[in-house]
């Protein structure tokens, strides 16, 4: 069997792929907004002195980190409407699953960063009479964020790539458009290669940022 490469269809329907890319990016950005903010909150709960709070937070984080993202998405898609009697569109369900997944991973990143903050800083803020809100907002958060940035970016790229999974519950993201296009046109090689390159073109430059921030962190800690 001979297969002749033909990019005509991919180029003709490129706007569909772009529509898909917009959905993918929207999901990624919103999930990251969730993950970056909620993740810090959960990280604080992980260090809570109240045992029940700490255990609940740990259970949440471990559960999302130790099960496949795909089953989380499928679970949200099928089970949330039944259990909670809420009917949201597939995109919102996908966003919830991706966002909570990222929250769990980011919480771990923040937790490690919070632990790296010297004990003396906390003592100093108590000595200065800072309230807990001021302590967290002005002492803990800025330092934890700085320290965690490389891991947070890595997680963001991971989330961008995992967002392709929502295609399996029929959210029309980039991956979904690729599947549809390749079946409609019988051009799997061209379609999947082009789409893979689109994903690469976005995650590769961002992954280079990680190296930059890692070096900066090492430099500043040494200096």
């Amino acid at each position, binding site marked *: *069997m001979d*297969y002749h490469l033909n990019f005509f269809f991919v180029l003709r329907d490129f706007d569909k792929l772009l529509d898909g890319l917009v959905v993918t990016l929207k999901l990624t950005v919103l999930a990251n907004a969730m993950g970056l903010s909620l993740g810090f909150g959960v990280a604080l709960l992980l260090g809570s002195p109240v045992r029940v709070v700490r255990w609940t937070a740990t259970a949440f984080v*471990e*559960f999302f*980190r*130790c*099960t*496949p*993202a*795909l*089953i*989380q998405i*499928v*679970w949200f898609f*099928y*089970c949330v409407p*039944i*259990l909670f*009697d809420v009917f949201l569109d597939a995109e919102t369900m996908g966003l919830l699953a991706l966002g909570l997944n990222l929250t769990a991973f980011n919480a771990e990143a923040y937790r490690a960063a919070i632990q790296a903050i010297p004990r003396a800083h906390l003592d100093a803020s108590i000595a200065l009479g800072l309230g807990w809100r001021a302590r967290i907002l002005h002492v803990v958060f800025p330092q934890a964020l700085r320290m965690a940035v490389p891991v947070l970016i890595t997680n963001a790229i991971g989330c961008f*790539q*995992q*967002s*392709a*999974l929502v*295609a*399996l519950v029929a959210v029309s993201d980039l*991956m979904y458009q*690729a*599947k549809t296009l*390749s079946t409609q046109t019988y051009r*799997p*090689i061209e379609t*999947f*290669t082009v*789409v*893979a390159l689109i*994903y*690469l073109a976005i*995650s*590769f430059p961002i*992954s280079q940022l990680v190296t930059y921030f890692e070096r900066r962190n090492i430099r500043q800690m040494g200096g």
Partner: protein
Amino acid sequence: MTYHFSFGFMLDYWSALLIGLTTTLELTLICVVLGALLGFVVSLMRTSESRLIYAIGSVYVELFRGTPVLIQIFWIFFCLPIVLHVEIGNLSSAIIALSLYMAAISSETFRAAMKAISREQHDACVALGLAPLAKITRVIFPQTILRAIPTLLSNTVSLFKESSLVSAVGMSDLLYVGQNIATRTFHPVEILTTVAFIYFAIAFPLTRAVTVVEQRLLRKIDA
């Protein structure tokens, strides 16, 4: 709408779930071994002085780390047979896809582990007149493996989770079996939750093992 919980029906299906779990575990195990071996070779390629070999290794790693695993699986299922002009079975395709992914992430693990081998040891090899092959097998390989073990273990956990993606191309792994039972019995909540707990029950102890191994190894290496 009311949903009646029932767990009794699952007794009829537990052997099916077990078969799915076996597939998942087999797939993970095979791909971890193949992927780790290939990953070591790739990490060596990336230390090569030949620019071409270095470039091939790097492009491969960035390509597989920069694109979603789902699209890699789709590419290998639908495009590789066309490119190679051969029929590739379901299981073989899944093994190829996941091994290549594992190799890409593990090569980064090995690279980091290799960097930790001090410059003096390389000089010592030269001074002792060790042949390049002897240097790799006797000096670099054992130390790299030792240092890489914790990260390799967490890569294994990732691969175990990512292996659920093969359900999207119709391989009857744990998730696929679970979804099938869910549609057949109209009890998605019970079955999908059970499947998630099965994944959790395997991945969670592994992540704990990573921490323990890490602490022990670090103590040994530093001592």
